[in-house]
């Protein structure tokens, strides 16, 4: 192909709209693809104050009106939002000087837009499955959950290739939707280690004082306060850690379990040791990750575990539960500590080990940072993704759609 590869990506979040891990993934993937000679058009939901159209680091970003129609519930909103996304994307794609070569959809939240445009333009659809409903809910229980699961199954069926960010997620997706192995590709998620560079030589001691007393070590949790993230396991581990080390637990994020969790903390009489910050902006989050003595990811279900990578990039030692993508990111005793999932004693042991053994913490921190630079670099990930696009286009060129 003489001209640039032309890709249109769909996602329900892109900065400054940040809900979960898809938003930073979208930002870094599209930017790094642009740096690797791919023309990327991102179609995403609108956000107050963000323009409808802009070019960010070489990426064309289109934000569509996502609340055009009133919706009775979240799932219905998703499909109504897709109606508008699909219509706008159709208009954008048909007016581009070069045709779109590949559509790339991220999660079921943009399933119908991606599937519809694939057929209308007859171009291959690539899908990244960041998570699954059956994994998030630990099974399918309510009607909505079945509907979402079936939509995910349909999306992976329609996909030319399904990308997962970990080997764990590949086998999970293969099992959940009965996909053939050769339809799946593993491309890891990345992290930007340079985000922390400018904090390297800054004195953060007064910033640290906002969260903890000088003699307290900081145990950091970053994530939504929901069941699948295992935050309740960490809260239950607090007294066990405090028996070994003086620490302050800083819990960043919000979610439906917040009230329940703070009640547990109150009943333990440990309100002075556990701080719920709610959502924290990017600048403060980077600083917190930098000053944390240990970062904990106690997830019960974790397709990838980007928050562990971020901590490792910030040179904060990590304790993770040995599950999902986390099992692949962390090598026990080398780049972090692995605890048994859903096990308070094991998690408390891991945290205490890091807090009480400075040499151990230091080794882990250095090894982890080295791995980040070697394996989770966005430039390498973009190159892998580009090769995958080209492979799909090679197959496509031999099909009757070409």
């Amino acid at each position, binding site marked *: 192909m003489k001209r640039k590869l032309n890709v249109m990506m769909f996602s329900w979040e892109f900065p400054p709209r940040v809900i979960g891990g898809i938003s930073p993934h979208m930002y870094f993937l599209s930017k790094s693809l642009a740096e690797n000679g791919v023309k990327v058009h991102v179609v995403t939901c609108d956000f107050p104050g963000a323009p409808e159209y802009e070019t960010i680091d070489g990426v064309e970003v289109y934000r569509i009106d996502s609340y055009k129609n*009133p919706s*009775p519930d979240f799932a219905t909103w998703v*499909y109504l939002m897709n109606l508008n996304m699909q219509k706008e994307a159709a208009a954008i794609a*048909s007016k581009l000087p070069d045709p779109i070569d590949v559509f790339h959809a991220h999660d079921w939240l943009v399933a119908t837009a991606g599937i519809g445009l694939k057929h209308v333009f*007859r171009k291959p659809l690539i899908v990244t499955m960041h998570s699954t409903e059956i994994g998030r809910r630990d099974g399918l229980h309510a009607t909505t959950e079945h*509907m979402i699961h079936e939509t995910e199954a349909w999306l992976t069926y329609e996909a030319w290739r399904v990308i997962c960010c970990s080997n764990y997620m590949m086998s999970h997706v293969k099992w959940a939707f009965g996909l053939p192995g050769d339809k799946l590709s593993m491309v890891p998620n990345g992290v930007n280690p340079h985000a922390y560079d400018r904090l390297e030589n800054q004195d953060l001691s007064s910033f640290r004082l906002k969260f903890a007393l000088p003699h307290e070590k900081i145990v950091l949790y970053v994530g939504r306060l929901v069941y699948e993230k295992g935050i309740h396991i960490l809260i239950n581990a607090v007294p066990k850690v405090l028996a070994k080390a003086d620490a302050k637990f800083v819990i960043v994020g919000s979610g439906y379990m917040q009230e329940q969790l703070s009640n547990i903390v109150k009943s333990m009489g440990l309100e002075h040791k556990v701080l719920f910050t709610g959502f924290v902006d990017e600048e403060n989050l980077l600083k917190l990750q930098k000053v944390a003595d240990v970062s904990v990811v106690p997830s019960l279900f974790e397709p990838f575990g980007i928050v562990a990578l971020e901590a490792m990039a910030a040179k904060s030692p990590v304790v993770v539960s040995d599950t999902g993508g986390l099992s692949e990111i962390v090598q026990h005793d080398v780049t972090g500590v692995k605890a048994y999932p859903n096990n308070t004693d094991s998690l408390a042991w891991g945290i205490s080990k890091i807090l009480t053994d400075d040499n151990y913490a230091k080794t882990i921190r250095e090894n982890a940072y080295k791995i980040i630079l070697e394996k989770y670099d966005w430039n390498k990930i973009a190159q892998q993704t580009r090769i995958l696009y080209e492979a799909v286009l090679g197959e496509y060129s031999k099909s009757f759609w070409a």
Partner: protein
Amino acid sequence: MRVVIFCWEYPPRIVGKLADYVSNLATQLVKNKVAVHVVTYNDVMTGISEEANGVKVFRVDNPVRTHVNLLTWDLTLNQEAERAGASIYYQLRRKVDLIDVYDWHFIPAAVTIKNALGIPYVYSVDSLEDHRSPGADAPFNMAIRGIEWLGFFEAQKVTAKSEWMRSEIVRLYKVPAEKIAVTSPTAASWVKDVLAVYKSASGGSEAQ
């Protein structure tokens, strides 16, 4: 002229009076040398079939079986309608003159295909949400009205079956009256009227 009709009911699937109406119209159109392709829903009969009257019917089923409401059912069925519509378009070497869409169910598909492939569509109104659910202002009903509004906004032409319906569309959706043609099925000139709308909407001459 090559026309694709989108309608959520078509014999043998009969929900209301639209199925027979569209089936009659399609038969008449074929007699008037219009190549008619109907895209419709059926959960039992799927795929392409050519009917005795010369109408080609493309029946699609919803790939998602479990739903929380009619909207989620509709908004997942539309991609299959798009797949069918696009298949017809590519099989006819990209020569489809017009889409005729009945009521709100397949408005999303008509709007997407219009924007992607540049095929204009006529929105043929049988009934409106305001009449089906008078006074209902729940988000569910408002969303259906939103889809109807989008249908009117993006349509090349609108047809109503009576002067009364035409005035209702103007009253409820502020659609410019000249965009709406009345094609009454009881009038002797019914098929001629529909053909005139098709010609005008597809960029052909309005004269017969």
